[in-house]
């Protein structure tokens, strides 16, 4: 065992550079147990709620479905299915607003509930230790489970690559201010989460899991401290309160001291990270056969009367969720999906809750004031001091404004995790993350265009080569034909036939004679004319 592994085993907590301590505002939503939200009348289920290709739609308008029934299947694109959140009728399939910062529409399935809330489940698998990996992975995939922490990466896919793992890391850090969904889930369903971790350990084929919780969740920590002694494979890591310690890369650094290589995966350093919500969903899918049709969502902010955590069916429109929590919109109201650091504002409230929605925040301007006018950068370096990726945000900002894409590459723009710490501390209130997102999009666009033109160039060159080859082949054919003809003629002559060459020579001779005669006649005429003068 190397020294580093020994230190990991000893429970050492490393530090990561930078980080900030924004006001937490967590007490507002974590005081009450998770409540069940009443069923909405209509649900909007986007067919793509994860990272990757969407599945194929397997229902049609007018179909009656029951809760838990898949609406799409993995199909040829290796997508992830989505399920009906309740029983009812499919009333529309088409473009609709989805939970994405761009506000662009995507295909959604609209379901009108019948109020009976009939459900189907898959057969429970209780003896998961006896089952093969592929069966369990298939179950997790069929249950539609994608990382519930925010990135929405299909969970089964993370385990599909069979590589030796040192540790499975379970992320219960939840460092974003305001959000307490994971906190409440851990307090109330610690045993189910542990079951999920056991299943994930079995899938990962690794011996040890580390469950990381931020120190500001003493109740959740106490829950696990009492339960974990029965589960020797799982150890608890309490990490200090600092944003963004729940970022995948930062958490890895905190509990193992390792760094995920740039543009690499945690797998590259022998680790896989899963969210506690995902562990819970995995346990429900395997042990109870329930597909992922609901999740915990924190609803909080000054403009909601009953802040707290709710079990919300996936596909519930945000409007319905907020309505049930007592929403009093103010002027110029912002509705943020996610937390105040990394969440995005919604253009309207028809947007549904999806698998990665952990929070709906409706702040007043008193608690989260609007940004002041952007001023010039004074190079104070506060941003660099807080950057967890050790970038130089102010340099990136200059380069992004100057559209110096090579410079941005040198300053490692793509290692930015968009945590927002730099913009949080910027005294000139420069929306730094916004500039980086834009620059990243531009760089990606350029790369796409470059690839396109590369493809076009290759096709053009291939065509040129083909034309040239065809020309050469044609010439070759002609040459061969001519040779064959000549040979045939020569053979014919040898056999005694008229040599066509003779005929040609004769024709040339005749033509020459005619020309000579004409010339003689013209000369004679000219001399006549001269004599007439």
């Amino acid at each position, binding site marked *: 065992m190397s020294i580093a592994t020994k230190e990991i085993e000893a429970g050492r907590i490393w530090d990561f550079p930078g980080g900030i301590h924004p006001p937490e505002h967590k007490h507002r939503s974590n005081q009450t147990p998770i409540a069940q939200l009443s069923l909405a009348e209509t649900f909007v289920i986007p067919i793509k709620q994860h990272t990757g290709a969407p599945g194929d739609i397997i229902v049609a308008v007018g179909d009656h479905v029951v809760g838990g029934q898949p609406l799409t299947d993995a199909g040829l694109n290796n997508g992830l299915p989505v399920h009906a959140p309740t029983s009812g009728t499919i009333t529309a399939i088409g473009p609709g607003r989805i939970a994405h910062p761009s506000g662009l529409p995507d295909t959604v399935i609209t379901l009108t509930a019948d109020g009976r809330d009939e459900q189907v489940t898959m057969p429970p698998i209780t003896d998961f230790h006896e089952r093969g990996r592929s069966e369990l992975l298939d179950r997790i995939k069929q249950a539609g489970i994608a990382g519930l922490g925010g990135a929405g990466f299909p969970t089964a896919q993370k385990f599909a690559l069979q590589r030796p793992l040192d540790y499975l890391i379970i992320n219960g850090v939840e460092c974003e201010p305001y959000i307490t969904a994971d906190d409440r889930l851990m307090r109330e369903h610690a045993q189910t989460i542990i079951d999920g971790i056991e299943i994930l350990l079995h899938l990962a084929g690794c011996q040890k899991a580390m469950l990381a919780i931020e120190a500001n969740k003493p109740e959740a920590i106490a829950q696990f401290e009492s339960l974990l002694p029965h589960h020797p494979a799982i150890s608890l890591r309490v990490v200090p309160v600092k944003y963004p310690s729940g970022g995948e*890369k930062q958490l890895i650094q905190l509990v193992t001291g390792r760094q995920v290589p740039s543009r690499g995966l945690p797998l590259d350093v022998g680790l896989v990270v899963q969210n506690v919500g995902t562990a819970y969903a995995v346990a429900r899918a395997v042990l109870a056969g329930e597909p992922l049709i609901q999740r915990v969502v924190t609803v909080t902010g000054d403009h909601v009367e009953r802040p707290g955590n709710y079990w919300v069916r996936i596909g519930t429109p945000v409007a319905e969720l907020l309505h049930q929590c007592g929403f009093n919109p103010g002027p110029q109201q*912002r509705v943020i999906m996610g937390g105040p650091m990394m969440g995005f504002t919604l253009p*309207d409230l028809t947007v549904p809750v999806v698998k990665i929605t952990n929070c709906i925040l409706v702040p007043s301007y008193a608690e989260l004031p609007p940004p002041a006018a952007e001023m010039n950068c*004074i190079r*104070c*370096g506060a941003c660099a*001091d807080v950057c967890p990726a050790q970038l130089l945000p102010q*340099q990136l900002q200059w380069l992004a404004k100057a559209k110096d894409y090579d410079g941005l590459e040198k300053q490692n723009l793509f290692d930015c995790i968009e945590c927002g710490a730099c913009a949080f501390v910027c005294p000139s209130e420069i929306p730094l993350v916004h500039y980086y997102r834009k620059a990243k999009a531009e760089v990606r666009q350029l790369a796409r265009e470059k690839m396109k033109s590369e493809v076009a160039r290759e096709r053009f060159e291939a065509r040129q080569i083909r034309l040239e080859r065809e020309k050469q082949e044609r010439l070759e054919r002609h040459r061969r034909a001519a040779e064959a003809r000549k040979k045939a003629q020569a053979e014919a002559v040898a056999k005694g036939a008229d040599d066509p060459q003779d005929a040609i020579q004769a024709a040339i001779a005749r033509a020459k004679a005619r020309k000579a005669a004409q010339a003689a006649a013209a000369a004679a005429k000219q001399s006549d004319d001269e004599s007439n003068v």
Partner: protein
Amino acid sequence: MTFKLAASPHTHNRRTTQQVMRWVYLALIPGVLIQTYFFGFGVYVQILLALVTAWLSEAAVMHLRNRPVRHAWQDHTAIVTAVLLAIAIPALAPWWIIVIGTLFAIVVVKHIYGGVGQNLFNPAMAGYVLLLISFPVQLTSWPLPTELAQLPLPFADTLSIIFTGFTQAGHSLEQLRIGVDGITMATPLDSLRHDLSQSLTLSESLAKPIFGSLGGIGWAWVNVGFLLGGLILLKQRIISWHIPGGVLVGLLVPAAIYWLFNPDQAITPLLHALSGATMLGAFFIATDPVTAATSNKGRWVFGLLIGGLIFVIRTWGGYPDAVAFAVLLANMTVPVIDKYTQPIAYGHGGRP
């Protein structure tokens, strides 16, 4: 119903550029009070002149650049520039000195490069160097510390001498600078430099009446005042320790070594630390973020370079003090420092 769209993060800690700058000029107060105590009300007059010139010239430039004047006034950077320049020049210098210096600092050094955040050189120090080179006599004619002066200098006379060159009684600045022994007195650093070059020993030079137990009378306490202000800035996390630490280490370590080998002919490290503009430079001038290196490692290198240059120029150069030249020279090296001190980003093989 539509809702407001905004880019994340939606939260911000409330320390603005204006607040940063306000802390900087508030932290100057102890030093300025002490400087006024020793060198008279002229300090206030110079600060006032500099502020008025800075505000007016900034307004004019912003008008010419078709930008809102409010925008430039709001960030308070001009205040810092004006005050730094005003306390760097002699308290009784003629009024046009500070006006020219401030105009140059604001118009040429700051706005011609594109305004706040864009200038390569520290505006106050560039203004100071312009003045020092153009008007060396006025810039080196520091008044005597009050306790050494022959003639008292009430406020009316201070104004009179700044605006007309003579007190109401008709004394010129030169007459005011004559000490008890009837000889015009130089600043401590100037006097030391002169004496040491004349092969006097350090103790002989220090026997002059301009020196007290701590160092130059007045000067030592002014430096203590700016050190105090600097510590406030450190405490408030307005500046990091890297630049002032670098300046002091870069100045005092070579100074100490040189002095150990040459105790009679070298200025002691304590005298270096408490003379001239050492503390003002280390905590308030070199730390100007716009013209300094940006990473912590870079700031450390930048500070060391300034400190080293101050030592070299004070010891072997043509000027008694060197903060302004050292800062400007270091400003030029910032892009290079930044290039070679870029921190290793996460996942690029650095040691965690």
